[in-house]
């Protein structure tokens, strides 16, 4: 895969990032470098190798369905940039 202007724009949109043209050039360069390295890795034959999804071998790390105290309304809203007595407030989003 080659990263071009279009791809960077798409990725930027998905990540909700904005940058100027210099930064964009920079990004194209470094992302292509990363993918180049990935291509190098792709040379390794991994056909019979399971992907490593987790760093530990533990399984079924589960919890019983018992309620424990929640954070509480005041604390929950404490760090919100904008709020009222009930809700988080965010710029209007409409689909």
């Amino acid at each position, binding site marked *: 895969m080659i990263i071009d202007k279009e791809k960077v724009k798409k990725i930027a949109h998905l990540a909700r990032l904005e940058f100027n043209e210099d930064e964009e050039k920079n990004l194209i360069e470094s992302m292509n470098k990363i993918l180049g390295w990935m291509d190098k890795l792709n040379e390794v034959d991994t056909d019979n190798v399971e992907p490593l999804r987790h760093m530990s071998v533990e*399984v079924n790390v589960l919890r019983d369905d018992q309620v424990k105290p*929640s954070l509480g309304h005041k604390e929950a809203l404490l760090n919100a940039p904008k709020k009222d007595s009930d809700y988080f407030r965010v710029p209007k989003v409409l689909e």
Partner: protein
Amino acid sequence: MSVYDKYQPVIGLEVHAQLLTNTKAFSWEASEYGALPNTNVTVVTLAHPGTLPKGNKKAVEFAIKMGVACGCTITRYNFFDRKNYFYPDLPKGYQITQDKTPICVGGTISIKTKDGLVKNIALNRIHMEEDAGKSMHLAEELDTLVDLNRAGTPLIEIVSEPDIRTSEEAYVFLSEIRKLVRYLEVCDGNMEEGSMRCDANISVMLKGAKEYGKKVEVKNMNSIRNVQRAIDYEIKRQIDLLEEGHSINSETRTFDASTGDTYSMRSKEDLNDYRYFPEPDLQPIVVSDEWLTSIKEKMPALPQELVKKFTETYGLPEYDALVLTEDKEIALYFDKICAQTNNFKAASNWMMGAVKSYLNELTLSINDFPLQPQQIAELIALVDSNSVSNSAAKDKIYPALIASPTKSAQKIAEELDLIQQSDTSALGRFVDEVLAKYPDKVAQYKGGKTGLLGLFMGEVMKLSGGKADPKITTELLKKQLDA
């Protein structure tokens, strides 16, 4: 033939069911409907840095239960994936879901349409995931308001294959799913409150075509009936477009219940790229034979099993069995009556008639019904032993019993003086009296006018104050007259 008959609609449904766990899918706070905004939240749900999710064992078991009930293959090695997108009601910026290893694969839901056709709708998968919070876009507000109580609520998503062909099939399919989740007690199945939600993928193609048409996804139907309406509308809209020479736009549309129309929400052209990847914060879930067996052992009777029992063991008509199993509690109550009577059809008649109409009238559930199954069985026994007439049992004893549910049916029948005269000697005296009173009619009867039996019967009834057992009275009359 109308133009609409030229086309074959193809429908697949995605059903989200909120699981009835006490806590959330990956966090320990209460998962409940209707709490004050932003009170059921923790640092995990709010995605504070450095926090880690931890799976809810019961949510996994509920998902497996549903899979077992639908005949799915249970995936033994499960991991979770992240589905990435930005929306204010999704604090982490990704939804934890199962993309690669849905816990249930395959399976079917059997449906029966009005014309009696039985069809198996294949399931693609059932997977576990978490719900998002709730955004409110109020007209009078400049901001969007976000309530995160719902964020992290455990869900299962049931995905059908595109096997559904009519809106009626979709209606029955959803009704079956709702019945199942309620029987299993994994979800309350309340579409109005959003605890069960349905998205419909709809396309049309010319009959006999090999390739499906372009599909449109319709969301926001808050009842099973509205799913049916939205599908009907959408099928017509798509056919009209094609007939006018237009093509179908692959898009997501929303349903407006007030007009019955669907409106475009977003085009699939600016396709969401969810960039799924394995969730590293949650360890895999391995379903062992032992675990699966213990879940299977705890499975309640399913509607189809009860239908089988009611028709085969109790010999009920299929119609009765289907009505009685519509609601699990009703079915179990009925089953309890049947443990105490052998007149199963009478028990069914009581349930579908007097009991249901009482519940409907007061909009009560069977759990609030004042009578015990045993009391209904007693009523049946009173009628079967000819102690009381059927109408006395239904119209007099039953309401009196509901008014004083601590009494027995027998006691009420005695108090209301409804016990039928079945004492042959007493009835014999009435019979003699009546026959002596109408010698001319007796002669006519003997001459062939057997229809006069009803007159004698009525007279005996009058003398007995309406309490003569009709069967025994008839026998006595005939014995005398035909001698």
